[in-house]
């Protein structure tokens, strides 16, 4: 298999879907002529024309609203919001319209659309262009949410998202676009389910998106003294927590790693579920390791320090499993 990037895997998924189904359209700011703010949709305008690759004005609420109307009437729109931070602009259309239409209208009107966006830190993009707002999407019944953390998932999860009968929020990570990897012939796990990325008996670490990569780096460094089981949550809403709970029941320890602000995060939800479902199996309380409860600062030094990395994951894992207190604990 040939190596490709996360960015090109996303592009490939869009190309394949648009070739296979002429009801698929793309719409968003700079998706056409410019080729996408992060270059994902380069070349698509030439290939599919302006009726299917639609450059829009800077009107996020109406981009999502128009995608909803197109989805209700038979198209399969992929709307792009350049940064997930602009969720503040679109939450009415997303949470009150897209997410609730099927339900409010008694099952008559589905909204089969994908909202592609990207988030996360790593580029010193500061407080309004670096957030991880997946908890907002997870807090909304009716939405589906996935966040690919590997090249293969970038392709397969996006293809799967575009086949869903319900709205899917698809959050890419700005720090992963240049990551290299292979696109598997089949998805690493079925749509909606977590993927076990590494087997181990001492500790379970649940993660997703870019933090999955940091977690895998940490797990490598921890071995062989500490064998870590790494669970990639990938599809967060609805969340199939079965494989994660099975893992925690085997290892008795659970650390959840996210880049998002920790309070009321995905990590908080997972910790609550682990407490409820694995109480008798736990050696230690489930631990959350997330972004600090602060806006993201611009200085690279501050930005880096505000979110977990492999080193910190390793520290916490050693403390949790081997009772080795890290230097910062003193």
């Amino acid at each position, binding site marked *: 298999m040939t190596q490709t990037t996360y960015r090109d895997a996303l592009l490939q998924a869009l190309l394949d879907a648009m070739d296979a189904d002429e009801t698929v*359209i793309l*719409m968003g700011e700079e998706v056409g002529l410019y080729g996408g703010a992060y270059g994902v949709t380069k070349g698509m305008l030439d290939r599919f024309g302006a*009726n*299917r690759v*639609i450059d*829009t*004005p800077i*009107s996020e*609420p*109406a981009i*999502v*609203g*128009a*995608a*909803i*109307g*197109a*989805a*209700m*009437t*038979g*198209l399969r*729109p992929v709307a792009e919001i350049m940064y997930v931070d602009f969720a503040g602009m679109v939450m*009415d*259309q997303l949470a*009150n*319209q897209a997410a609730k*239409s*099927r*339900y*409010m*209208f*008694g*099952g*008559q*009107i*589905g909204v089969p659309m994908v909202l592609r966006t990207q988030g996360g830190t790593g580029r010193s993009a500061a407080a309004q262009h670096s957030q991880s707002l997946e908890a907002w999407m997870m807090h909304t*019944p*009716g939405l*589906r949410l996935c966040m690919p953390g590997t090249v293969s998932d970038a392709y397969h999860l996006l293809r799967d998202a575009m086949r*869903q*009968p*319900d709205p899917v929020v698809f959050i890419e990570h700005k720090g992963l676009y240049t990551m290299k990897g292979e696109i598997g012939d089949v998805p690493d796990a079925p749509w*909606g389910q977590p993927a076990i990325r590494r087997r181990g008996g001492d500790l379970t670490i649940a993660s997703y998106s870019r933090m999955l990569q940091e977690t895998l780096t940490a797990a490598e460094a921890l071995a062989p003294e500490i064998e870590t089981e790494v669970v990639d949550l990938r599809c967060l809403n*609805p969340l199939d927590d079965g494989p994660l709970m099975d893992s925690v029941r085997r290892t008795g320890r659970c650390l959840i790693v996210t880049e998002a602000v920790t309070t009321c995060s995905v990590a908080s939800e997972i910790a609550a579920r682990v407490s*409820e*479902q694995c*109480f*008798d199996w736990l050696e230690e309380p489930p631990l959350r390791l997330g972004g600090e409860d602060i806006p993201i600062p611009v200085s690279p030094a501050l930005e880096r320090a505000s979110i977990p990395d492999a080193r910190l994951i390793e520290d916490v894992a050693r403390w949790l499993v081997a009772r080795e207190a890290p230097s910062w604990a003193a």
Partner: protein
Amino acid sequence: MTFANDAPLARYRTMRRIRTFEERVGELFLKGESAGSMLHLSIGEEAVVGLTDHMAEGDTFTTHHRGHGIFLARGADPMRMLAEIAGREAGYCRGKGGSMHIADRGLGHLGANAIVGGGIPHVVGAGITARNTGTRVVSVAFFGDGGMGQGILYEAMNMAALWKLPVVFCCINNQYGMGTRVDRSAGRQDFPARAEAFGLRAARADGSDVEAVHDAAQAIVEGARDGQPGFMEIDAYRFHGHARMDKSPYRTPEEEEEGRARDPLATARTSLADDTLLDTIDAEAEAEMDTAMKTAIAATPPASDTMFQDVYDPSTPAPRPQRARLADVLEERA
């Protein structure tokens, strides 16, 4: 009663059916049979029929929270509407949506909306679908004067003009958004001028005269069908309070009297001038709505486990009931 394709008479009948329907909705509330009190009557706004008469099968629309009349004008079954408003299983949305979220895909109703302006951009998407699939349908967004304050309207009008979509924005100006009269919410009240500034064809018509609305709406709707998006303001008066509990203490009896004199049904009666015939139409509307009301009230409420249905497509698992989750946790520890 059947009569030859006499359009003004048919429009009168539709308007009368709307008014009688809305009166029954008011009674439904007084009987304690409605689901809640968030009921917004469109009495005084019946002349919207002048616009909906230009719509055809296949056309789609969204409405605001005061949309009963629009939906009836597009062919809704009053019994299923009342059942929905009463929260019954037989309702259009199986008792999940109610007055403010009524919809019917088959009749082109893409949904009533309780977020002011919330349904407006959906017609832009419907317009993209029409363009891309080469059908000659139009999509109409209906909203109130309050919607003129929402930014998403201007985003949507711009997109419709930019892409020349078969879309109409129809503002039913009943002079009030809750207790705020338009002169307290709009710096300049020339709404068609706003639409024209975006490149839409725009018109304003007297909402006390359904034939005037019909005449003005022709070019707007047909223009949209040909790719010239439009805007239509219907100048009306909200006869009653904002919702069922509102007694409108913020306006004077004199103003209300003047406003209610702008009655599209009275105007139509005067010009049609056949009292016997019109009385028959009125009696038929009463009988129709009485029957609809009886049937709706007798209908059963939805079973409680239907609450988990239709959060997601039925081909995928429904959300897990909380009791089942708690039972799992507590039984395992017993």
